[in-house]
């Protein structure tokens, strides 16, 4: 078994070339995924669009933009991420975020900020809607049957009929089921308030040390993929462990955490992708990291084939 490796990019550049250079380098280095940070209030481009902009120019790497559930339409989120999966041919993910910032609420102007519990409950509903919409077309819904004049078999399209506290969504999606079926859903999680509440495939956790990492892995459901965030370089305090040292020391730290914790891998928060190129070489040399040959992000991360809930219900 090999460890998985991703990087978190948080740049605010509006120059496409800056993103293309970094994600191509990560792609060529064989990393599993790159995440694109985002908030409404920040200075910086929309992360889903940055991921779409680099998708046709990269071949293997997973593309996981942050998108906020608090002020957005779950329907638009679902179709945008499904489309990212189409344009990347099965490499899309989504890092879910909520916003409790009153200044961000004022930008959108729709309602006052919610308390944290309510924000997470709303995010949970949004994930449910997004996932149902992804499944709302069965994979073989398009039949192009000239004899009967029918383009689709409407029996294979499904209303999702979601009704929750903050929104109701009828469905089905406007987008045929994406290549992965269910693109990878991820969330940054500091505690059970998030990892027990959200139906994500991947959690990014922020352990202080190897023991803390092991504790977190034991607490989270076994089928979840768990990545430890490590901040590489920098002196500003953050939620993740910050590493300042040589490449060999960082490789030692990763090897140590990896061997004792049960983590699936690491997400390195970097200022620029070039900060980790030597590290990847070193982890390869030690036999800890190998580039996956899989073509979709789900396969790369070892997630099971996404069974369509409506197709299953129909068979039952």
């Amino acid at each position, binding site marked *: 078994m090999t460890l998985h490796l991703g990087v978190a990019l948080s740049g605010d550049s509006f120059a496409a070339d800056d993103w293309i250079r970094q994600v191509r380098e990560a792609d060529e280095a064989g990393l599993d995924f790159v995440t694109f940070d985002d908030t409404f209030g920040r*200075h910086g481009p929309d992360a*889903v669009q940055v991921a*779409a902009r680099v998708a046709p120019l990269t071949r293997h790497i997973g593309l996981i933009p942050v998108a906020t559930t608090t002020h957005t339409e779950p*329907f638009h989120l679902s179709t945008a991420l499904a*489309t990212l999966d189409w344009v990347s041919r099965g490499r899309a993910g989504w890092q879910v975020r909520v916003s409790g910032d009153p200044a961000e609420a004022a930008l959108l102007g729709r309602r006052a900020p919610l308390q944290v519990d309510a924000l997470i409950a709303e995010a949970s509903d949004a994930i449910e809607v997004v996932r149902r919409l992804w499944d709302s077309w069965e994979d073989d819904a398009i039949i192009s049957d000239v004899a009967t004049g029918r*383009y689709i078999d409407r029996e294979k399209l499904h209303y999702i009929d979601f009704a929750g506290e903050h929104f109701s969504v009828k469905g089905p999606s406007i987008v*045929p089921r994406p290549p992965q079926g269910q693109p990878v859903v991820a969330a940054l999680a500091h505690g059970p308030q998030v990892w027990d509440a959200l139906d994500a495939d991947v959690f990014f956790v922020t352990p202080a040390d190897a023991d803390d990492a092991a504790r977190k892995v034991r607490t989270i459901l076994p089928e979840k993929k768990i990545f430890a965030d490590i901040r590489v370089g920098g002196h500003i305090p953050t939620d993740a462990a910050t590493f300042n040292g040589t490449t060999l020391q960082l490789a030692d730290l990763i090897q140590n955490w990896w061997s004792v914790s049960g983590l699936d891998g690491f997400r390195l928060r970097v200022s620029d992708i070039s900060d980790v190129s030597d590290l990847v070489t070193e982890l390869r040399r030690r036999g800890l990291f190998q580039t996956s040959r899989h073509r979709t992000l789900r396969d790369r991360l070892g997630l099971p084939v996404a069974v369509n809930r409506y197709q299953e219900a129909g068979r039952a």
Partner: protein
Amino acid sequence: MPKQIILAAHFPGVNNTTVWSDPRAGSQIEFDSFEYLAKTAERGKFDFFFLAEGLRLREQRGLIHDLDVVGRPDTLTVLTALAAVTTHLGLAGTLNATYHEPYELARQLATLDHLSGGRAAWNVVTSPGAFFGENFRRGGFLDHADRYVRAGEFIETARKLWDTDGGEFAIRNSQFDIRGRFGVPRSPQGHPVILQAGDSDGGRELAAKHSDAIFSRHHQLDDARQFYRNIKDRLPAYGRTEDSLKIIPGVSYVLGDSDADAQEKAHHIRRQQVSPQTAILLLEQLWNTDLSGYDAEGPLPDIDPVLDEDDTIIKGRAGMYPDRLATAAEWRARAEAKNLSIRDLIIEVTGRQNFIGTASRIAEQLNEYVQTDACDGFILVSHLTPSGLDDFVDQVVPLLQERGVFRTEYSGTTLRGHLGLA
């Protein structure tokens, strides 16, 4: 110097113009199809690529409509991805002012403008009513009467945000109350190009006040000239010059080796577009009632259309028949006079191709439209995904270039530059 023609490529959409049953028809969702059409348009030095937006699948008789293409991608995501595989082509998309919010959408359009080097365009539409609202937080909140108020204030708000150059704003009007700092510095075009398609008096006034271009549906020569004059005459009241608003009808064409060959192809395509099942469905859109018991190869119904505009048989598509009884009488008279079946009649009265002929005839006609002020250019709607514009780019574009009415190379990098907009 003669007027220069504007050309745009419309990705085939979710109506019966698009012939999915043709063996050459490609995917409506895989990125290869979008890339192919965009690259074809750029090879032809087109001004822009156009993609419509879906908010809910169409329904007829209360069921998801299954006879036309169903399903399409998210507009912004595909346009932004196309920026990666093209260099000059404008990237235009429909985005609904009812179910988006100004801060988020202005940020996304400015992001597209940055990431494409100044090629973003936004076709502003509104969708009042409960049908689309069932997929969104606020439901069917927008009254029909307020649709242009919402669209106008949305455009004004977006432009104020773009003008902040990443600075502070505080905006309050009847639709929006927002403040803070806009997270995007001035994009290459400053303001992404704004298109508008509304055709009522309110829609025309909105376009005259705010739009850079109109996606028009007036394509008969005389009608188009009247529309053109009507719109351009509204501009001085807003302190605008005639060339600051471009009028670009959506049109279809069929190319042939001879005029007879083109006519034959056109007829074949029309029969592909109107299957017997589709003929009945299109008839129902006027009759506004279930006609599934009728034979498409038989005569028209002798009952009258149902006049209930609040509960139309088709959902998810703008109303097309302002006077159902008059149109039904007209269709019956025509069918009786020429002994047409339902399918024959529907083939004649709906969606006939606008330009049919040899490449030189089509080039001549397109140029006549533009030089005689029936329009400023065309959004070409082909019937075949994704190769439907190949023949136009290969055969008609060179003739327009020979006449000196269409560019042979891009002279600038932004869509505003291509369109000759300030």
